[in-house]
């Protein structure tokens, strides 16, 4: 049963198989939490989002219709909506001065932080949290959850073209920030401007790409 796909497990769970649902929880908890953590920037909120998503799935079991939706996509849709909801509540509370504006970050270091300079990771995480909600969600679903364009579109309730546009805008903003840090020298070992790592000739691509971006 462990190798069954998500939708098979969900169908079994809907038929009363508790172990099937447990396997879904074990299979997806870490990634849903990772997406939520990078979306909210807050460990407690990430736990809340993950728990809420699975509770919603549990309550959906009696109504679950196999083939109507893919479980993985459905679960991330619930999680992203909860992330957005929590973010809005926090902003309202901050506006009412009930919360500090700056959210506490999840600052546990791990092996990934050792591979890339810690300050750069922190900067990228800040950039991700500064993205508009849907761009942030699309990016996290692509990078962390490894969802396809169609799945991202489904999870966000938008067309595939709109999902692609969200990803283009998100990556472009992050790339601009990265370029800025490279220019400032706050990121180690920048690639030579216009020279690719396969020994290609100096390029006009960056400036041209930037001009094209400014035109859009």
């Amino acid at each position, binding site marked *: 049963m462990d190798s069954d796909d998500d939708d098979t497990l969900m169908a079994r769970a809907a038929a009363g198989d508790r172990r099937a*649902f447990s396997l879904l*929880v*074990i299979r997806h*908890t*870490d990634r849903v*939490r*990772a*997406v939520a*953590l*990078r979306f909210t920037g807050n460990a407690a909120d990430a*736990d809340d989002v*993950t*728990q809420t998503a*699975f*509770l919603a799935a*549990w*309550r959906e079991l009696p109504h679950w219709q196999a083939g109507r939706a893919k479980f993985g996509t459905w679960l991330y849709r619930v999680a992203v909506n909860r992330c957005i909801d929590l973010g809005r509540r926090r902003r309202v509370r901050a506006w009412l001065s009930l919360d500090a504006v700056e959210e506490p970050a*999840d600052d*546990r*270091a*791990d*092996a*990934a*932080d050792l*591979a*890339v300079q810690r300050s750069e*990771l922190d900067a*990228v*995480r800040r950039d*991700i949290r500064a993205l508009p909600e849907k761009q942030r969600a699309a*990016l*996290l679903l*692509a*990078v*962390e959850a490894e969802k396809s*364009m169609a799945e991202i579109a489904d999870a966000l309730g938008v067309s595939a073209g709109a999902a*692609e546009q969200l*990803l*283009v805008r998100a*990556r*472009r903003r*992050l*790339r601009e920030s*990265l370029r800025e840090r490279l220019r400032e020298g706050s990121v180690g070992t920048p*690639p030579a401007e*216009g*020279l*690719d*790592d*396969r020994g*290609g*000739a*100096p*390029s*006009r*691509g*960056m400036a*041209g*790409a930037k001009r*094209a971006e400014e035109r859009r």
Partner: protein
Amino acid sequence: MTIEEFERSLLAHGAELARWPTAQRAAGEALLTQNAAARALLAETERLDATLAAAVRAPAADGALAVRILASLDGEAAAERVFGLGRLLAWAGSTAAAALVAGFFVGQSFAGDPAGGVLALVTGELSGVEGLP
């Protein structure tokens, strides 16, 4: 494929060309063989992707959250059972209460002539019951 189209595909799908739609991938690979700007953009996006992957990766989980979630679902299931029993009791209670109230009013209505009133209801001879049209 133009360099602008190549750049857009990089931003949409990332630097791993294997994840691109088939037609775009073929066109992109062809462009890479002849265009240095495309190769520079690819290298830059590879770096961006690597940084993003490291930045979004969550610290290794210990399974504690999954355990907490499963425990909360057990609680939810227990609550559902209690709630279901509660609803049954509420239904039974309200039905019994309604019967008592109805019995009281029926009793009050025919208190003056219980036998005649009930008999009139049964036989349909309502004209004999005082207060009814």
